[in-house]
């Protein structure tokens, strides 16, 4: 019994020390960002591997989410004779919630886990150590470019997701359900507010990107350098990253969308 209590205490302290390490890590990473601007090729390479390679899944997911949402919206609204509001329902859901959250989750799963695995492998094969001994700070050369690439990519991917989803909804509404094109767009142009809906959604995506890439990069840097440890670190990135996105989403929604 006593042992069990002791182990809980240990694990709690471990968690605290992890959070502490993570925060110090973030601080160092932010300080190293200036180096990235002297060597933009590093950033560009990472933007490719982190952003461009996530594009495909974002496009496909966005399209299907938009289309499904339009179908479901129609089924509900048609009972109230309010089918014209289908465009509103789809767009507001996407811009305010589903766009940022879906992109955050997909990013954590695809790009986040890849980042963790890559950095963790570099740690296991002593490449990070080697760099230090060559007097090149791995923070500056490896970590900071990936971090910046993540923070830049996620809002960009979110914008693409949102646009594709709305277009998907448009396709379903007009082609499949026979709505009028003019009605679809004019409803949106009146009711959807640039600042309240679109900008808030983009702010969310910025926050999500920051947190997910921080977790991904830290887990890789901090992992136990064995094959088992690497697997655990990758899993933690996906799980913690996803939970963080959902939790922060609630927080931000409560802050932004009050009446």
């Amino acid at each position, binding site marked *: 019994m006593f042992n069990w209590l002791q182990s809980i205490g240990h694990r709690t302290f471990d968690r605290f020390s992890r959070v502490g390490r993570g925060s110090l890590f973030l601080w160092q990473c932010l300080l190293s960002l200036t180096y990235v601007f002297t060597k933009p090729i590093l950033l560009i390479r990472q933007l*490719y591997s982190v952003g*461009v390679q996530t594009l495909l899944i974002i496009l496909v997911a966005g399209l299907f989410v938009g289309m499904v949402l339009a179908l479901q919206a129609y089924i509900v609204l048609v009972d109230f004779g309010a089918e014209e509001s289908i465009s509103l329902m789809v*767009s507001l859901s996407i811009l305010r919630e589903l766009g940022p959250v879906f992109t955050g989750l997909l990013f954590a799963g695809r790009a986040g886990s890849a980042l963790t695995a890559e950095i963790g492998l570099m740690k296991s094969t002593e490449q990070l150590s080697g760099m230090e001994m060559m007097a090149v700070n791995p923070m500056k050369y490896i970590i900071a470019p990936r971090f910046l690439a993540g923070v830049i990519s996620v809002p960009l991917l979110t*914008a693409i997701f949102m646009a594709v989803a*709305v277009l998907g909804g448009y396709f379903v509404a007009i082609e499949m359900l026979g709505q009028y094109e003019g009605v679809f767009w004019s409803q949106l142009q009146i009711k*959807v507010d640039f600042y309240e809906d679109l900008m808030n959604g983009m702010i969310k995506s910025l926050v999500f990107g920051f947190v997910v890439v921080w977790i991904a990069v830290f887990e890789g840097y901090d992992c136990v350098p064995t094959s088992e440890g690497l697997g655990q670190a990758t899993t933690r990135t996906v799980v913690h990253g996803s939970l963080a996105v959902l939790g922060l989403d609630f927080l931000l929604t409560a802050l932004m969308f009050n009446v």
Partner: protein
Amino acid sequence: MNTRNLEITVGAFVVLAILAMVMLSLKVSNLASYGAQGNVYEIQAQFENIGGLKVRSPVSAGGVRVGKVADISYNNEQFTAVVTMQLEGAYKFPLDTSASILTAGLLGEQYVGLEPGGDEEYLVQGGEIELTQSALVLERVIGQFLFSKAQEKQGE
């Protein structure tokens, strides 16, 4: 992948995202109407009850949107609600125009409807609409209806 191809691909990615943002801003949100900010003028109207009218609710004349509600406040001396409206400069209304708070559809959102009068002079920036009709408060209407029904019964 060599550097040049890499840069091109990343550039394409960023351009795609910017296009998406532009499309969203213009077609999906009301940014275009923000742009019409340049040529607007403000007028006020006082109501006893504004019902469910909100800031940014539309202002229409003849069913066409001509502006929006910019501000709602309460006049504590005259005990009325003061609604400040922004109208697009292209549209001019006579001094004796009346403003009513109407509902779009049966249960839709509320908006301000303008009925033009016949005066030769027009409202300008800072002007005020004298003739106003407050929103229908559903409970009052029902109450009135029941009251009048009861009176009928008594009369018989």
